């Protein structure tokens, strides 16, 4: 603080640091906040407030405002730690070559994890594949290394948000996080990472619904809000709910007889189910991302109807909606990936894998020949039952 006697130091446990920067800007925090996306500090809950003396020794794990000054701030402490100095996570500057050599020599999960940690925390985006490979080696060396599985998921999710994305990265992230949580169901940080993208019926709170309010408040102060390269959307801002909201009008199946021409490769759909598997009575959120085929001259026709998805849940399954529309930009044409989400709940006993019939309808145009097409894409959504 201003007299220099006390330092406030924050550590944020979330995937996207810019969101915490916006939060800090909104709340006008003036103290350093460090980013721990892979839970190097091995926290199993947040928030945690710890008072450390001048020697780095913990003097209180639950500081009391009433006695803080007398018991801690104005007191002198001896350097009498009960334990030896330890370290969590890689040092800086990172010794990538030495860490890699150690991992290759010892082949231990811990060494591979240390190498991966250095790459994730201090490497470039181009080194993400190497970090993924390192964590994979860690999980091969020790299949029950939950921390390695969690970090693997963080890397997949991070890569899914870059131009170097692999088609199944988001799904791989959810599967890796699911494996980590199965190994340690009490790991709160890991659970929250999945719930961030999960269904409303399993959500403890809305996660990032405060973003719009924060940006408005910052602008009102005459400041420019921190830019969020990846804006929270869909599941990340959805309000928790005990039941699916009632639909005002029963939608009509736009193509009940399947007469609309099927797409032949101009659009693909990535399907991600969060969580990976559910028990009867539980729910899942389905994320569908539609992308135009690479290396083509196709674009979305935004002057026509928006992309629509029709969900036809089988017996024993209820869906939050039967007809979902994707948002479209104001520009007449665009080529971005389009994501829609909906949720499903298993009502009764079920087992194995449940197939949920889904199809999408959309308008795409070809720049080269100037032709526009209205197409249907049937999507395979598989819901695994625990």
């Amino acid at each position, binding site marked *: *603080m201003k007299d*220099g006697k006390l330092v*406030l130091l924050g*550590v944020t446990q979330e995937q996207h640091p810019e969101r915490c920067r916006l939060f800090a800007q909104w709340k006008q925090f003036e103290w350093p906040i460090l980013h721990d996306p892979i839970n190097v500090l091995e926290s*199993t809950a947040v*928030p945690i407030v710890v008072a450390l003396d001048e020697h780095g020794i*913990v003097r209180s794990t639950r500081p009391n405002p009433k006695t803080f000054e007398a018991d801690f701030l104005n007191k002198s402490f001896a350097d009498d730690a009960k334990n030896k100095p330890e370290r969590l996570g890689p040092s800086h500057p990172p010794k990538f070559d030495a860490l890699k050599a150690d991992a290759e020599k010892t082949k231990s999960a811990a060494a591979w994890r240390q190498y991966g940690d250095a790459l994730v925390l201090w490497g470039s985006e181009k080194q993400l594949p190497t970090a993924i490979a390192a964590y994979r080696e860690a999980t091969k060396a020790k299949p029950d290394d939950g921390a390695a599985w969690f970090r693997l998921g963080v890397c997949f999710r991070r890569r899914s948000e870059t131009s170097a994305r692999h088609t199944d990265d988001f799904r791989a992230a959810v599967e890796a996080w699911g494996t980590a949580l199965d190994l340690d169901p*009490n790991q709160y940080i890991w659970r929250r990472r999945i719930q961030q993208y999960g269904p409303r019926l399993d959500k403890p709170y809305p996660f990032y619904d405060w973003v719009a309010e924060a940006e408005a408040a910052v602008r009102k102060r005459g400041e420019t809000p921190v830019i969020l390269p990846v804006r929270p959307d869909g599941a990340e801002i959805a309000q928790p709910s005990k039941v699916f909201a009632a639909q005002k009008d029963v939608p009509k199946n736009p193509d009940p007889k399947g007469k609309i021409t099927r797409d032949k490769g101009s659009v693909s759909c990535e399907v991600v189910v969060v969580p990976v598997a559910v028990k009867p009575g539980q729910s899942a959120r389905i994320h569908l991302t539609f992308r135009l085929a690479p290396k083509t001259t196709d674009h979305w026709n935004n002057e026509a109807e928006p992309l629509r998805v029709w969900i036809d849940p089988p017996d024993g399954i209820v869906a939050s909606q039967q007809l979902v529309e994707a948002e479209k930009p104001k520009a007449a044409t665009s080529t971005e990936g389009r994501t829609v989400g909906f949720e499903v709940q298993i009502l009764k006993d079920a087992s194995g894998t449940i197939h949920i019939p889904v199809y999408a309808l959309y308008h795409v145009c070809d720049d080269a020949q100037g032709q526009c097409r209205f197409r249907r894409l049937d999507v395979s959504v598989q819901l695994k039952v625990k």
Partner: protein
Amino acid sequence: MSRSHLFPLALALCAVSSGRLGAAPPGVGERHPDFTLADIANDKPVSLSDFRGKKVLLIQFASW
């Protein structure tokens, strides 16, 4: 920020999110492990040991 605002802030952070407490951190009397992470403001590395010689209130939290 004045010291008198310190604990309302820490308590406010407790209100941002909540969970099972007390499982992971080192106990009273133990030296907290050192660590080095990037400052979200400028991506520069900051170590806990950088603050040796000063009292530190370490707050682990999330904006959700």
